[in-house]
Structures are given as C-alpha cells and as structure tokens.
C-alpha cells in the first residue's frame, strides 16, 4: 500500500505541453481515417433524409454507441476524472446527474419522437400546432442550447490542445473548427455518426486500458486503491464533501442535468437515424450502458490519479484537475500512452462539436428556412444547400466564438445549456406528445419563458454574480436556474393553453396517436 508514494517520488517530470510525436501521429491517423469515412459518406449523402438522418439506416446498437459518443465530451472525461482526483467522491455525484436523464429519454421521449418527427425535435412540437410560430421559438431554443454548449467545447478544446500538444490556442481552435465542419459539410449525419462511433470506441477502450494499467499498480484490487487514497488523503475522500450543501441547489442542478439531457437537440436528432421506434428504444439501452460504464471508469481514473499522481502535482498543472487523467496515463503507460489518450481527447472534442454543428444546421435549414421562410414547401436540394451553408456559417461562428471567449470562464455555459434544454425544449416537447389541450400559444409561451428565465436567472445567480462578477451576494439564490425556469415553462404552457383553447390542434390529437403509438405513417 505504500508503493504509491514511492512511485510518486520516482515519477519523471511530465512531458505535457510539449509536442508529443506519438499523439500527433495518432491524431493525424484519426483525422485521416475519419476523413476517409467522410469521403465514403459523401457519396451516399444526396437526399435530405441522408444528410440529416443517415438515411435512417443506422442500427440500434450503432446509434447507442453514437449517442454515447455525442454525450461523452472531453469535458466529462477530463473534468469528472479531475473532479474525483481533487475532490474525491463529489465527482461521482456530479456524473450520476448526467446519467439519470437517459432512462427518462427512453420512458418519455424516444419512441414518440422517432414516430412523429422527421429531422428535428421541433417536427414533433409543431406536428398539430401552427408551424411558423412553433418553428421560430423552438429553433431559438435549439440554437441557444447549441451555442452555449459549443462555446464551452471550443474554449475547452483550445485550452486543452494547447496543454496537450503545445499547440497555440488560436491554431487549435482553427483546426477543430475546420475538421469538424468538413465532417458535417461533406458527410452529413452518416459521417458524423461514424465519427461518434469511432470516438466512443477509442474513448471507452482508452479509458478501460488506463483503468487496467492503474489497477495493476494495486494488484488489481480496488480495495488497495481506496486504501492508498485514505492513507494519503483521509477517509473523507470516499464520502460526499462540500459539493452539495443546499438541497434546493441540488434539486435545481439535478433537474437541469436530468431533464436537460432529454432536451439536447443533438441528442434528440440522433433518434431519426434509426429505422423505427424499436431501434430507438434499443439505442437508449445501449447508450445508457456505455455511458454508465464510462462514468465508472472516470471514477476509478480519478481515484487512481489521486493515489498515484497525487493531488498537489495535479493541481499544480491545472487548478480544476483537468489534467489528472493525462498525468495518470503518462505515469502508468509512459509517453506513448499519454500520446494515445491525448489524441483520444482531441478526437472526442471534434466528434462532439460536429454533432452540435449538424443539429444547429438542421434547425436553421429545416425549421427556419423551410417552415418559416418557405411556408413548409421544401425543395429538397434547396434545403440541403441551405443546411450546408448553415454548416459553414456555424463552423466559422464556432471558431470566432472560440477566439472571442479565449481565457474567459465558460464552465457555467454547460450548466446553462442544460438549463435551457430542460426549460425551453423539454417541457414543450413532452406536453406536445402527451397533452391533448396543448396549444400553439401555450408552446410559444412555454419555450420563451423557459429560455428567458434560464438566461436572466443565470446572470442573477451566484454562478455569474459571485463567481465571475465578484459581487458579495447574488440576487437569485440558486446556482442553476432550472428549478424555477422549468417549472415556469410548464406552468406557462399549461395556463396559456387552458386560457385560450385551440380546437384545431386538439382535433388532430386523435389521429396523431396512431402515429405516436403504432408508428403508422412514420417517416
């Protein structure tokens, strides 16, 4: 049990931040393979359903892996491992929040979404309501969610790649922006899906090897690992610490993570890539299993890093502990393995931003261009052209945002994206599926309330007022606004719908049921 400390003293200085030839070679290999896949996908991507939904030919298992790939960001890999490595058990509480939304996607959303929609979740909300107003507000909800998520990813990517490869921040942002735009632009959903699958396999495989190499130092005994942790840092590392103190804060963040997952446009869009509701359901089962396994791995990686690398060395490189997994990789597998894990982290970022960009482009082309500007009369090739232009615009925008927000504290943006997804997107989607009396006005007010409350309250919350702006106290007490903004969105949707009924929408509910439950007429 003491060899951990001996190892620590013997550990060589980290090569992090210098150009590692293995990681650069690995990264180029990844880009070469995914570009070849994009080339292959481009030849099969002609129609709208091919561009947006990979021709609906992805199997349930493949889509499960791709969903996991879309969801397991570099931030969760490095961030949660780092949180465990520096704060102990609290990191697990955080990761559990990200997992428990998945079963709810299956029970409440996945099958009706697959049966009712075509390319975006707004298809479902607008199914029996008036197209124009719904498409406008839901694309605003989608694009806000995507924008905040994208900024967090791009800024994280720039910083991470600088630390990993010694590459300049600006150059890193540029590379990520250009490569991911190429995937989406040429290969559409088919290429994006395979990028997600390859990335998921690499990430799960790499993290598994890292756990095995680490546990080997403890004779493959987690008990010996925990023993080393408690000997060095005390038993309190294995129990909840200061992460959750205020129950309302816990409830609000919990709601945001849980129901926000069910409102993320890039996740919802993936359900259109499978042939039917049965495959949609299977893909959630597969995704939940892989994501759960991934969080188990990050938990063990975090504690291994704490025991083998040590808290102080981890925090000396990055205060939030983000480099914990990489330092552990270097210590257990040498420079070559560090290079591999660094390349996997880079690939992870690319895949996630590609998924976000594709869903943003479909919201612009399918929801806004076709249903708002063209009154729903879509000329397929015209729609794809707009989608491709939107992809280029979003690619440029993500690079610009990455540069503008350089050095800013953007960690709160992921929480904000989840809050908007839980408040603007999820309530309207759920009510449109299950509630006969839901009206166009109700949906518009619900989405607007959810989005505006999320934005206003986050600015007034301790997350921004205290942590970023430096005030003593915040006007709004909760760190994440979802408890209030989501309740507000549901309440507004219900009250407005009841005040002014929409008989035309209610009349269509019965025939909608045939499609919702039996899949009759599903695309």
């Amino acid at each position, binding site marked *: 049990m003491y060899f951990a400390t001996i190892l620590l003293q013997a550990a060589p200085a980290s090569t992090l931040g210098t150009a590692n030839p293995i990681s650069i070679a690995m990264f180029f290999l990844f880009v070469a393979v995914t570009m070849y896949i994009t080339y292959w996908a481009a030849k099969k991507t002609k129609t709208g359903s091919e561009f947006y939904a990979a021709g609906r030919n992805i199997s349930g298992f493949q889509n499960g892996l791709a969903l996991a790939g879309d969801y397991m960001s570099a931030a969760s890999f490095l961030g949660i491992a780092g949180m465990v490595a520096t704060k102990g058990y609290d990191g697990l509480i955080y990761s559990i929040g990200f997992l428990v939304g998945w079963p709810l996607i299956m029970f409440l959303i996945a099958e009706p979404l697959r049966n009712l929609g075509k390319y975006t979740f707004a298809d479902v909300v607008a199914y029996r309501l008036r197209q124009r107003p719904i498409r406008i507000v839901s694309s605003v909800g989608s694009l806000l969610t995507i924008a905040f998520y994208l900024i967090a990813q791009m800024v994280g990517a720039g910083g991470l790649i600088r630390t990993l490869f010694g590459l300049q921040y600006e150059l890193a942002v540029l590379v990520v922006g250009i490569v991911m735009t190429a995937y989406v632009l040429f290969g559409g959903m088919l290429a994006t899906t395979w990028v997600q699958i390859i990335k998921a396999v690499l990430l799960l495989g790499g993290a598994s090897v890292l756990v095995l190499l680490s546990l080997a130092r403890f004779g493959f005994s987690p008990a010996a690992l925990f023993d080393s942790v408690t000997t060095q840092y005390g038993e*309190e590392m294995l129990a909840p610490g200061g992460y959750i103190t205020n*129950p309302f804060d816990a409830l609000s963040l919990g709601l945001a993570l849980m129901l926000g997952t069910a409102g993320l446009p890039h996740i919802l869009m993936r359900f259109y890539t499978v042939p039917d509701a049965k495959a949609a359901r299977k893909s959630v*089962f597969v995704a939940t299993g892989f994501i759960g396994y991934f969080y188990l791995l990050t938990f063990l990686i975090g504690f291994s890093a704490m025991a083998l690398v040590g808290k102080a060395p981890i925090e000396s490189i990055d205060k939030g502990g983000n480099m914990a997994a990489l330092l552990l990789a270097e210590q257990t597998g040498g420079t070559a393995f560090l290079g591999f894990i660094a390349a996997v982290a880079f690939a992870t970022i690319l895949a996630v931003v590609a998924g976000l960009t594709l869903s943003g482009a479909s919201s612009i082309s399918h929801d806004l261009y076709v249903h708002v500007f063209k009154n729903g009369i879509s000329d397929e090739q015209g729609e794809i052209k707009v989608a491709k232009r939107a992809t280029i615009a979003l690619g440029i925008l993500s690079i610009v945002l990455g540069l503008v927000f350089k050095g800013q504290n953007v960690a709160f943006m992921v929480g904000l994206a989840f809050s908007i997804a839980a408040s603007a997107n999820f309530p309207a989607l759920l009510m449109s599926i299950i509630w006969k009396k839901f009206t166009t006005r109700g949906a518009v007010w619900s989405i607007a309330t959810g989005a505006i409350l999320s934005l206003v309250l986050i600015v007034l919350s301790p997350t921004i007022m205290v942590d970023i702006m430096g005030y003593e106290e915040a006007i709004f007490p909760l760190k994440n606004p979802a408890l209030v903004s989501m309740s507000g969105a549901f309440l507004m949707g219900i009250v407005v719908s009841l005040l002014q009924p929409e008989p035309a929408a209610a009349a269509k509910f019965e025939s909608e049921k045939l499609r919702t*439950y039996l899949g009759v007429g599903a695309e």
Partner: protein
Amino acid sequence: MQIPDTHSPHEVINSPAFRQLVRRRWSVSLVLTLAMLTVYFGFLLVVAFNKAYLAQMVGKNLTLAIPVGLGIILFAWLLTGIYVYWANNHYDQEVANLKAKVK
C-alpha cells in the same frame, strides 16, 4: 356479431384495445420514471441532509456512499433494460396486432 378484419383509423383509435395499449404504455413509463426520480432525488436529499450516513464505513476503506453511487448507475441502466424487455415482449406484439387492423 361480425367483426371486420380492417377498421378505419378512427375506429382503431377508439377501440378498447388501443386505449388500453396507450394507458399501459404510460403506466409502465410512469412507474419507471418515478422509480428513477425517487432514487436520484432521494440520493441527493441524503447527500444534502445526512452526509454522515453515507460516510459510514461498510468495509475496510469502503464507505456506504461508494456502493450506493455506483448502484444508482447500475439501477438506471437496469430500468432501461426492464423497459426494453417489456416493450419487446408485450408492447410490440400489441402494436403489431393493432397496426394490422388499420386500413
């Protein structure tokens, strides 16, 4: 009484079989959703109000918090498995029967 083989969509939607299908689907979903919400928010409440309970040792270098936390991850996955099992073995059959009746 003569039962025709196919029905109009309106007849199918108003048939007892279809109503029961919808009711049962949401009952299963609701029970599983409540199970997930109860376990997760129950856990958060214990973390917020009684950290000492989770910090108690249940083995050498093993706090109760660790099996509980990892157990929730496993529980979430099992719930999705239960739903898939139910849907594949009961729901899909009913859906196929009803779908065949729609003209």
